[in-house]
Each structure stands twice: as structure tokens, then as C-alpha cells.
């Protein structure tokens, strides 16, 4: 891509650049390190000096250590990251977290504006998180295990089937309408059947997640295949490819973008369904953790659960997006 840019750069400009490096360095340092996020960090530290209004322990040290950790991480990232866009994104997220912490600390520990039983100060939540770390990990593993099993199984079945049905539908067939009809049924209505058919909570969950993912992925794959350009198919045809090659080496990559749309939808619905189901009928999982402690009025742990769910979803969508970006790296930007 940049071969031409490199060779095209006239020497005059290169010389110019060299002269400016000193001022460039200065603006580079400003760009990387002089940011609102660090001011927010300082503000957060300063408000710790205000007297507590809360009778109980606020566990402020945990919040302070968290913020210090975040600040060290931000400085490391600022020094290492290459793309300005990524740096901006990262720094904005940290700034948002600081802002939230400041407001939260002021509203709870410092001014006691909210009900302490429902809204514990941030330090307490962090300390609870550390205390419950092992328990949380077990519940995260349980939830992710179920999701991955149902989700990956659904993709493994829906993609080949979608390729095949899409290809047949291209040649004229009822497959499109049938899958549209079945896909239109919200997966939650399969739960009663799942419960009647399957022995354990886990198997019902896997089954429902399977269906929640299966239909959008099948639909995405089929519409992907049906929208592949004739040009692409003709060039495969004149190479005389066999049917398997046509489906897996041509149709699959050509419809990948649409397949990902289906996968993304399946993932979102799976999470909603699983956490809801865990709240109702499970003895483990993140939904169970949240529901269980809120039943006991332990809102510190409820908030811990909520934060963990948020983090898990962010991490999973980050991984998902990275995979998608990698597999679609050939697409023009």
C-alpha cells in the first residue's frame, strides 16, 4: 500500500521533516501525556482528602490502589501504543472510569447522598471483588462454558448448512422462506420444550443458546451466499471447481461478512438469554451470582456481579471483533 508513498516522497520534504524533529518531539509528548485523563486522576486523589461522611468503613485504600493501577497502566500504554486513534480510545475509556469513580465516591463516601445499603462506596466493591475472586471465576467459567458450547456448536452446524441451503436457494428453492419463518420465532419460546426434553439446567441452556445462535447464523450465511456477485461465481466456475471447493473456498469467504453479522447477533442474544435463565433456575453462573446476593440484600456483591458481567461482555466482544477484523483483513478499508 505504502510503496508508492515511500518512493514518491521528494527529498525536500524529508529534509524539512528532519529540521522539525525537535518541535515534533515536543508536540508528540504533549499529544501522549498531557491529557484530561491525568487531571481526572489527580482530582480523584484529591477528593480522597475530604472527610468521610459514612459511618462504616469505606475501604478507600482499595479504590486508591485501583486508580493508581489504572494510572500506571495508562502511562505504559501511552508510551507504547502506536496508533493515535487507539490511544484516544483507551484514554477516553480510562477517563470515563475515573469520572465515574469520582462521582461515585462523592455521592457515597464523601457526601452520603445515596442509601449506603443499596450503593456501597467503590472501595467496598473492589475489596469485595478481591475477596470473592475465586467464587467469581468459577461462575464466569460456568457461564462462558455454556455459551461457548452452545454457540460454537451452532456455528459449526449453521455455517455449512447455510452454505449448502444458500447455494440451493440461489438455484431456486424454498429454503429461504423456511429459514426466515423458523428464524422469526424468538428463541426464548423454545425454553419450555428444552425443559421438557432435557434433563439438566446446563443442557437446556446449551440447547437454547444453540437455537438463539443457529437461526441468525444460518440466515446470515444464506443471505451471504445469495448475495455473492455473479462475477465471483463465474470466475470460480471457469476454474472448474468441485462443489465442496465452491462452497468452502469460494462461498464461505465471500459471505463471511454476513456470517459475522449473524454470529454477532447470536452472541448478544445468547448472553441475554443465559444470564436471565441463570437468574431464574441455576445454581451457578453470573446471573445466579447477581440474583442470589440481591435476594439476600447484599448489594455490594450485586454490583460486583454487574461489573463482572460488563467486563466479560467487553472482553468477549473485543475478541470477537479481533477475529472478525483478522478474517476480513482483505476487505478494502
Amino acid at each position, binding site marked *: *500500500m505504502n*510503496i508508492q508513498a515511500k518512493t514518491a516522497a521528494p527529498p525536500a520534504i524529508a529534509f524539512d521533516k528532519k529540521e522539525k524533529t525537535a518541535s515534533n518531539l515536543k508536540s508528540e509528548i504533549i499529544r501522549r501525556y498531557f491529557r484530561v485523563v491525568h487531571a481526572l486522576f489527580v482530582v480523584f486523589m484529591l477528593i480522597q482528602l475530604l472527610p468521610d461522611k459514612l459511618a462504616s468503613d469505606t475501604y478507600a485504600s482499595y479504590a486508591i490502589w485501583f486508580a493508581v493501577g489504572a494510572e500506571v497502566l495508562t502511562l505504559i500504554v501511552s508510551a507504547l501504543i502506536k496508533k493515535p486513534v487507539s490511544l484516544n480510545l483507551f484514554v477516553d475509556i480510562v477517563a470515563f472510569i475515573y469520572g465515574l469513580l469520582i462521582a461515585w465516591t462523592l455521592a457515597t463516601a464523601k457526601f452520603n447522598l445515596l442509601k449506603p445499603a443499596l450503593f456501597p462506596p467503590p472501595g467496598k466493591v473492589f475489596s469485595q471483588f478481591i475477596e470473592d475472586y475465586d467464587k467469581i471465576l468459577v461462575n464466569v467459567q460456568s457461564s462462558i462454558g455454556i455459551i461457548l458450547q452452545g454457540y460454537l456448536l451452532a456455528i459449526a452446524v449453521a455455517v455449512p448448512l447455510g452454505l449448502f441451503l444458500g447455494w440451493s436457494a440461489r438455484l431456486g428453492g424454498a429454503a429461504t422462506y423456511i429459514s426466515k419463518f423458523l428464524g422469526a420465532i424468538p428463541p426464548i419460546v423454545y425454553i419450555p420444550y428444552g425443559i421438557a426434553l432435557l434433563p439438566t439446567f446446563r443442557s437446556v441452556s446449551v440447547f437454547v443458546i444453540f437455537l438463539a445462535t443457529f437461526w441468525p447464523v444460518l440466515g446470515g450465511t444464506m443471505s451471504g451466499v445469495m448475495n455473492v456477485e455473479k*462475477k*465471483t461465481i*463465474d*470466475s*470460480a*466456475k*471457469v*476454474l*472448474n*471447481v468441485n462443489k465442496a*471447493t465452491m462452497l468452502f*473456498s*469460494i462461498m464461505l*469467504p*465471500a459471505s*463471511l461478512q454476513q456470517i459475522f453479522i449473524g454470529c454477532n447477533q447470536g452472541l448478544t442474544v445468547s448472553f441475554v438469554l443465559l444470564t436471565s435463565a441463570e437468574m431464574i433456575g441455576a445454581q451457578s453462573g453470573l446471573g445466579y451470582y447477581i440474583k442470589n446476593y440481591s435476594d439476600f440484600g447484599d448489594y455490594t456483591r450485586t454490583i460486583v456481579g454487574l461489573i463482572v458481567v460488563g467486563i466479560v461482555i467487553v472482553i468477549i466482544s473485543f475478541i470477537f471483533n479481533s477475529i472478525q477484523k483478522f478474517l476480513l*483483513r*482483505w*476487505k*478494502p478499508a
Partner: protein
Amino acid sequence: MSKIEIKNLTVDYVEKRKSFTALKDVSFSIEEGEFVSVIGSSGCGKSTLLSILEGINSPTSGEILIDGEPIKGTGTDRGVVFQHYSLFPWMTARKNVAFGVKQVNKNASRSERLKIADEFLDKVGLEQFKNKYPSQLSGGMQQRVAIARALAMDTDVLLMDEPFGAIDAKNRTILQELLLELWEGDGTKARKTVVFVTHDIDEAILLSDKIVMMTANPGRVYREIEVPFERPRNRAQLVQTKEYNKFRNKLLSLFYSDIAEKIGGEEVVL
């Protein structure tokens, strides 16, 4: 027996109850190892003709025989370069060529296929761009990859639809020479049979044994003209000869008389 026999080929495109005759009663034959160019104004059915030869369309009536057998669909005996470059966007230039090689030569190992791909990408002048995706290449570069793919597949028959149309003058000359060189070979192997569509009369004269001139509405063969120049042809010398200019003028006047006839008649197509 001719290598390719096109017999009374008629192709109608049917769209919403309206039918359009793109080719009407087209017949001509091509000998084994012959290089045939097809020229004619835009819309006269050149691409349509090739699509039947490729086996991705079937004629309304008439047929095409290759080695005496009617064409039934696509086949690995024919290598194709489309008018609109058509690489697989998810494969790098190298993979695109290697993929083509794999389809005709199932026994070749992965490294052999890649070696062949590299060799032909070198030949079309893209050694630096082997690992680029089509979206990172210019139109002309993409077309060169498609040409490399068709040549690397080493098929008996080559079907090329304005392959050099999108390529700059300098590379066009290089590629014309490359094509001739590969086609002429070293005399050990039988020559490929080539059907080559072009708009460029000089290109047609330089490359072909025979030129088939087509006329539009409906698409028909207007003239078949043998190219009288000896091979190997030297472009620089050839274009300076009297014979060349005489021949070229003859082709041009035929071409324009066809259009003049059209203007004189009812249909005016330019």
C-alpha cells in the same frame, strides 16, 4: 477436424418477457494452435460469444464443439481471462494464481503450486506485489494477476476478453510480447489455441493468425480475415512496412463500412 467449431450459434437474452438477440447465427471454426482475435464495436456480442465458449452460458440454439465434442459447461481444458477482472478478493495475488493451478493440477504439492504462481507473477511484472490482496492493487495490476493465473494454468485453450484493455501502454506491450512468447513456445509442445477479444486493431494484427470481425444488432460475423504476416513478428519493423499499413487500412475500412451500412440503414449504433 478443427479444434473449435462454432455452429449456427444464436443467443437471446430474455428479460421480463422481452427478448434481445445478442448473437445470431454465428459460425466459424478455429484450428488447433491457432491464434484468433475477435474485434467489433461495443455491444456486438464478443463477451457473449466467449461466455458460451467458457461454458458459463448456454446458447439459445446452435452449438460449439471442442475436439468434436459439444461444450457442456465449464472445463479445465480452457483458461479464461474475463473482461472485468475477477480475482478472489480474500486471496493474495499469489494465492489467486496458485488456486487456479490447483484446479487443473491436483497432484502438484502446495509448494510446487506456489512456485508456479511466483514464476508467472514475475513474468507479468508483479513480483513485488505477490502478497497483496486485490483491493490493494490497481485495476491494471489485478488484470495482470488474472492473466498470470490463466497462463499458469497451462490449458489447451485460452479465452481472453480484452485482457489488456485496462493496462497502460508500456505494460501492454510487455504483456503482448509475453503472450506471444508463451504461445509460440520452444517448439517442444503443441501451441495453445487462443481466442482473444480486443478493440485494438494493431494488437489484433500483431498477435493473430486470423481476425474475426463482428457486427452488432444482432451480433454476427462480418468478415474472417487471415493475417498474412510471418512469425515471429517484430513489432517495430512490422509497423513500418507498406504491407502492414495497407492491411491495417483495409481492416479499418471494413470496420467503418460496417458502421456506415448501419447508419445508412435504420439502426444507428455507434
